C-alpha cells in the first residue's frame, strides 16, 4: 500500500464529487474478496484516479511522492517520471515549507486535513492556488503509512472571488444606487448609493418589494419593467420618479439589466438609478431663465407700444382738464379717467419697466424705489390685511442699478408677505450706514416681518439654490439671487429670525456706495 493524492484543475462545488469518488473507491476496496476482484478493483481505481480532474498524489511519511495522476501533471507541470521518488516539497513555495511538516505531523497523528487553501508551485515557477484534502492511509494493521492527498486547483475560483470582491467594492463605492431584485420584484441587494438616494438602509429594505420606493401612480411601471426583464431585454436611461423614505420625490434615470445564472436563465434584475434631481432642477431653472428672457424681450416690445399711447392719453386728459369751459361734471369724469390712467401707468412701469436696460448705475431716490416695489404688492397687502410701516431716512439716495435693487427688495418683501399671518406687520427701514467690517459707507435696507420665522434647521439652507419652504409657490431662488447680486456689488445680506412669540424675521441688505447723494436733477 502507499499514499494517494488527488488534484483537480476545475473549480467545482466543494468536494461532493470527490466524496462520491472516494465512496466509490471504498466500495470497490470493500468488495475485494479475491485476487481477481482485487485486480479488477485496482484497474477501476486506477481509471478513476487517472480520469479525475483533481490532482491525486500519494506520498510516504517522509513526503516522497509515490504516485502522480494525469491531473497532477496538468496542474503542476511535472510528469510522473519526473517527480515520483522526489520530495513533495518541490511543489511547496520556500515561505510555506513548514506547511509540509505540519501536514505530515497531523497525518502521523491520524488526523485528516480538509479544504486547506494554500499555494503550490508549478514546474514553470508560477503559483497555483489549491485546496488540499489530505487523509492518512493505514495498512492492514491500522498503522499509518502515508497520506492520500487531493489538491484542487482553485486559481480560477480565487480569481472569481477577487473579481467578486472588486465588483462589490465598486458597487459599494458608487454614487449611483445599485440594486438587485428577483423576478418577483423582491429586493436582493442595496448599495450605499441606494441608501443615500432613497434613505433606506440595506438591512431595512432587502427582502421588501421594490414597489416600496415606487410612487403610487407609477406602480404600473414595475409590471412593464419586470415583463421586459423576463423577455431578456434591457431598460436604458428611463427617466422617472421614486419616493425616498422621507416622502421626497427623487428624479432618477434608471438602467435595468436582467441577471442570468450560469445556464443563462434569467433570475432577477440589476438596477442602476442615478439621482438626476439636481440636473432636473437646473434644467428647469435654465428653462425658466430662457422663458424670462423671452418675456423680457416681449415686455420691451410691448412696453413701447403701450407706453407711447399712454403718454399721449395722459397729455390729452391733462389738456382737457385745463380747458376753461369745463363743467363740473366733465371735470369729475376727467379726474376719474386721470386716476385710472395713473393706475395703468403705474402697472405698466412696474411690470414692463423691470426689464429696462440697467447696465449702468443711475441716481435713485431710495424712498421712490421702495414705493415702486411696495406698489407691486399693494393687493397682496390688502388681501392679508397687512400693515406696512416705512422708516426711510429722508433724502436717502444712491447711485445704483435700479433693476437689481428692485429685484432684491421684491424678493425680501415677497418673503415677508408669505411669512406673515393675516393682520401681520412689515417694517421697511432704510438708512445710510457703514459696514462694521469693511468700514465702507453704503445703504442698509431692512425688511422685517412678525411672521412665522425661520427654523434653525432651515436657516442653514435659505441661501441655497432651490431651497424653499413655500412648497407650491417658491422657486427657492429669491434669496440665493439676492445674495449673489449683493456679493457682486461688494454688499451682503444678514438676517435675524425667531420662531418664538411670532417675533418673525428681519432681512437686512447692505449695499456699498461710492457716492451717496441726494436726488439731483437731470444729468445733461
Amino acid at each position: 500500500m502507499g499514499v494517494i493524492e488527488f488534484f483537480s484543475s476545475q473549480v467545482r462545488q466543494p468536494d461532493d464529487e470527490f466524496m462520491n469518488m472516494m465512496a466509490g473507491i471504498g466500495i470497490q476496496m470493500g468488495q475485494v474478496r479475491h485476487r481477481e476482484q482485487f485486480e479488477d478493483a485496482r484497474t477501476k481505481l486506477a481509471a478513476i484516479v487517472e480520469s479525475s480532474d483533481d490532482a491525486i498524489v500519494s506520498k510516504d511519511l517522509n513526503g516522497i511522492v509515490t504516485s502522480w495522476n494525469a491531473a497532477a501533471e496538468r496542474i503542476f507541470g511535472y510528469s510522473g517520471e519526473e517527480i515520483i521518488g522526489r520530495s513533495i516539497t518541490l511543489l511547496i513555495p520556500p515561505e510555506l515549507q513548514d506547511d509540509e511538516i505540519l501536514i505530515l505531523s497531523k497525518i502521523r497523528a491520524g488526523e485528516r486535513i480538509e479544504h486547506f487553501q494554500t499555494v503550490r508551485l508549478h514546474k514553470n515557477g508560477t503559483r497555483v492556488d489549491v485546496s488540499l484534502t489530505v487523509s492518512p492511509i493505514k495498512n492492514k494493521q491500522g498503522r499509518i503509512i502515508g497520506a492520500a492527498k487531493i489538491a484542487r486547483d482553485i486559481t480560477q475560483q480565487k480569481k472569481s472571488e477577487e473579481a467578486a470582491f472588486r465588483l462589490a467594492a465598486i458597487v459599494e463605492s458608487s454614487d449611483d444606487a445599485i440594486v438587485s431584485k428577483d423576478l418577483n420584484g423582491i429586493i436582493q441587494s442595496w448599495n450605499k448609493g441606494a441608501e443615500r438616494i432613497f434613505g433606506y438602509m440595506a438591512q431595512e429594505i432587502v427582502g421588501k418589494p421594490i414597489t416600496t420606493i415606487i410612487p403610487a401612480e407609477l406602480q404600473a411601471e414595475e409590471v412593464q419593467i419586470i415583463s421586459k426583464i423576463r423577455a431578456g431585454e434591457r431598460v436604458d436611461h428611463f427617466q422617472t420618479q421614486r419616493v425616498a423614505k422621507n416622502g421626497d420625490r427623487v428624479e432618477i434615470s434608471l438602467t435595468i439589466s436582467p441577471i442570468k445564472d450560469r445556464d443563462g436563465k434569467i433570475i432577477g434584475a440589476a438596477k442602476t438609478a442615478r439621482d438626476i434631481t439636481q440636473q432636473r432642477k437646473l434644467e428647469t431653472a435654465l428653462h425658466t431663465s430662457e422663458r424670462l428672457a423671452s418675456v423680457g424681450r416681449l415686455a420691451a416690445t410691448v412696453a413701447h407700444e403701450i407706453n407711447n399711447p399712454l403718454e399721449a392719453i395722459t397729455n390729452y386728459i391733462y389738456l382737457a382738464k385745463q380747458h376753461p369751459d369745463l363743467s363740473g361734471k366733465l371735470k369729475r369724469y376727467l379726474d376719474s379717467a386721470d386716476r385710472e390712467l395713473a393706475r395703468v401707468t403705474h402697472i405698466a412701469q412696474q411690470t414692463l419697466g423691470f426689464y429696462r436696460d440697467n447696465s449702468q448705475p443711475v441716481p435713485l431716490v431710495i424712498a421712490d424705489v421702495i414705493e415702486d416695489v411696495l406698489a407691486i404688492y399693494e393687493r397682496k397687502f390688502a388681501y392679508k390685511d397687512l400693515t406696512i410701516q416705512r422708516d426711510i431716512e429722508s433724502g436717502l439716495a444712491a447711485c445704483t442699478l435700479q433693476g437689481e435693487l428692485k429685484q432684491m427688495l421684491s424678493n425680501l418683501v415677497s418673503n415677508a408677505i408669505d411669512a406673515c399671518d393675516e393682520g401681520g406687520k412689515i417694517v421697511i427701514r432704510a438708512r445710510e450706514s457703514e459696514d462694521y467690517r469693511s468700514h465702507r459707507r453704503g445703504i442698509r435696507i431692512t425688511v422685517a416681518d412678525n411672521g412665522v420665522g425661520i427654523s434653525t434647521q432651515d436657516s442653514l439652507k435659505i441661501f441655497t439654490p432651490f431651497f424653499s419652504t413655500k412648497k407650491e409657490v417658491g422657486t427657492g431662488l429669491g434669496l440665493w439671487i439676492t445674495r449673489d447680486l449683493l456679493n457682486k456689488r461688494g454688499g451682503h445680506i444678514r438676517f435675524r429670525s425667531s420662531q418664538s412669540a411670532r417675533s418673525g424675521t428681519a432681512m437686512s441688505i447692505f449695499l456699498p456706495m461710492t457716492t451717496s447723494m441726494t436726488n439731483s436733477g437731470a444729468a445733461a
Partner: protein
Amino acid sequence: MIGTIVSSSSLVPSFSETPTLFFSAEVESQSRSVNAKVQSRRILVIDDEASIADSLAEILTSHGFEARAFYAGQKAVDYAREQCPDIVLSDVVMPKLNGVDTVLALREICPSIRIFLFSGQAGTGNILQRARANGHEFELLPKPLHPDKLLKKLRS
C-alpha cells in the same frame, strides 16, 4: 409722419412770431414772472409720434414755455441752426436720427442746451449704451410721464 412738421396748432407759436404767447388762465400769473426770463424757456419737443409731440408742446406752451413740436430729429437740428433753443425734450427711439444723436447734434450747435430724453423703452438700452461708451450720460425719463412731473423737472 417722418418729415418735419412744425406744429400747426394755433396754441403753439413759432419762435419767429412776436412772443405774445398763449397762457392758460391758471398759469398766467406764474408766467408773468417767467416772462422776464422767457429767453431761457425755448424748448423743442421731438417725438416721431405726432400726438405726443403736439400734446406736450401744447401743455408746455400753456405753462409759459415757447414750445415747438418736431416729429423727426433732423428737422429739429435744422431748426436749431437758425435759433438756439434753451431746452430739448426728445424721444429716444426714432427712425433715421435717433434721440441721442439728435441731442448730441443739438449740443454741437447750442453748447448750453439742457437735454431731457424720454422713452417708452424698446431699444433704448442699446442706444444709451452706445452713448455711454462715447462718454455721454443722459438721464432718461420714462414714458408715460405725467405733465406735472415733467414741469417739475424742467423747472428744477
